[in-house]
């Protein structure tokens, strides 16, 4: 599904370079639920951005669904993002002047779906996250948990091969976090491949595999016994 070999990434800071990722090897199979952990500055967000094609790698190779991701121009990157990836962000990143269903339909707009089809699909995914009654509400009329569910519905709408979540529960309280995790686990049960960046142990333990990063290298990569979130909800 996802194959990363000897990935290096550094950022220029003034005259110096900050070497953020120092040779990452990571392989994720289809249907996995992976937590990428690490303290701040460990490079976990950078890794996610490279996987999400929002950032470019300096050295190494990256293959996604047997497609080598090299020499991406912005247009190609945009098309790959649209085709392969769904994003879930810590701060939800909904467009605040569009209502819930319009937000969910946005990736479909860029895929070229007709309006009617788009709205149908968007409503379907919104129903899946249990927000069909909130479809015509603007993001600022929704609670944090609801916003994140709209964001998840939006990520799902394009039917991506890989879901990338960057601290999806970072802005939520514990109860809502578990609700979201419960939902993510359900998605994973259905066969979706999901990568979660987090620094919360309990969230990581709800995944099936934990990859720990420290100072730009993988310290630990282990499969864990999944804690079901549903028991806390």
């Amino acid at each position, binding site marked *: 599904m996802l194959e990363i070999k000897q990935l290096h990434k550094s950022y220029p800071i003034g005259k110096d370079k900050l070497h953020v990722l120092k040779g990452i090897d990571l392989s994720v199979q289809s249907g996995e639920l992976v937590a990428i952990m690490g303290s701040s500055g460990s490079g976990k967000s950078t890794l996610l951005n490279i996987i999400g094609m*929002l950032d470019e790698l300096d050295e190494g190779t990256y293959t996604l669904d047997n497609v080598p991701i090299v020499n991406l121009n912005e247009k190609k990157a945009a098309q790959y993002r649209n085709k392969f990836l769904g994003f879930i962000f810590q701060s939800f990143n909904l467009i605040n002047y569009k209502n819930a269903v319009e937000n969910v339909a946005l990736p479909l707009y860029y895929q070229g779906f007709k309006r009617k089809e788009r709205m149908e699909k968007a409503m379907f995914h919104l129903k899946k996250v249990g927000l069909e009654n909130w479809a015509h509400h603007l993001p600022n009329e929704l609670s944090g948990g609801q916003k994140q569910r709209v964001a998840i519905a939006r990520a799902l709408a394009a039917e991506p091969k890989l879901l990338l979540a960057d601290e999806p529960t970072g802005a939520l309280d514990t109860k809502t976090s578990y609700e979201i995790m419960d939902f993510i686990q359900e998605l994973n049960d259905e066969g979706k491949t999901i990568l979660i960046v987090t620094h919360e142990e309990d969230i990581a333990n709800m995944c099936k595999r934990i990859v720990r990063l420290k100072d730009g290298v993988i310290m630990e990569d282990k499969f864990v016994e999944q804690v079901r979130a549903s028991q806390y909800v």
Partner: protein
Amino acid sequence: MLKFLINRDTWQEIYDSLSKNKFRTIITMIGVWWGILLLIGLLGSARGMENSFNRMFGDFATNSVFVWAQSTSKPFKGFQEGRRIQLKLHDAKIIEKEVNGIEFVVPRNRSNALVVRKFQSGNYGIYGDYPLLDKVQKKKMQYGRFINQNDIDDNRKIAVISEDIYKQLFEKDEDAIGQYIQLNNSNFKVVGVFEVGRMSGGPQGEIHIPFTTFQKVYNTGNNMGWMMITGKSEYSIKQIEKDAKLILKNLHKVHPNDKRAFGSFNLGKMFAKMTGFLTGMQFLTWFVGIATLIAGVFAIGNILLITVKERTKEIGIRRALGATPYEIKRQIVMEAITLTLIAGLLGIISGGLILMAIDAAFGQGADATLVNASVSIPVVFLALTILVILGTLIGLIPAHKATSIKPIDALREE
């Protein structure tokens, strides 16, 4: 691209982003609206002024010159200076024959006379004229006709009077045609009443009688008071004036450099000055209007640029969701064009309303300062086209800016 333009979603996106940010949109549009309003208002007023000038000069053939005789200022061929010169009828014939590019030469005579009708009387200018005068200085007849060739041939005692004389000598709504007025103790039959243009006549009024009758009544023989010379439009009226004067000097034995012997009033020159003034004003109008438009369009660009900064995050989200840079650019440029177009159309409409108001306030009646203040449709389209082109160009700047930020940086923006 065409498919994109007729796609409802395209306009939905644009409508959403513009309507959900009303304040920004309105502020942006005011600049362009104001610019095109000024352009239309100025152009319309300039046109109105031009029309009013044209109406003023409308009665006259504009490439014409009046020539009359005065007294010499230089001794020549045995004559002393200060000799009075009298123009003769055959001078006109010779000039018509000798000078290049002449259309008409119209001899005229003038005198003053007490005119009496019943118990009314007044002192008016009496003109001896040929029918040709109508060609040079158009008489707008209210009733009846102007002098004709038969009047000349038969020395008829007929008179064509101006509107104001009619008002003074006749009762209201009285039919003047066929009535008699007394002029130097002989009766003249009124055959026509003409309207007074703004440049001809004057307060004292005019009475035109046949030239030949004038000769008889005043015993002027072959003398003529002055002549009106009209040039064909492709000839310079200044040159015709010069040539005619030179011939006259030759005929009347006047020193070639004598500047005082013959007086003249060149209407063509006057008119050219006026036209020059109008052209200048039109240029100014365009200049000011377009400069204002450009300023307005820059205002749009500026605000879009701020907007793009404000919307960096939104653009980042869109790109994360798979929008290509081209799609983002297209959207921002389309927003710019839509804004300029709507603002421009509103400006055209309100400019038109203002012109209608101007027309109602200053455009009515004979003394109107701005006659039919208006803007032609092609000019409006030209302005609109310029707007759209400028809108596109100015939209490209924020569009480029929007896509030059990496999506990852855009998303980090708070």
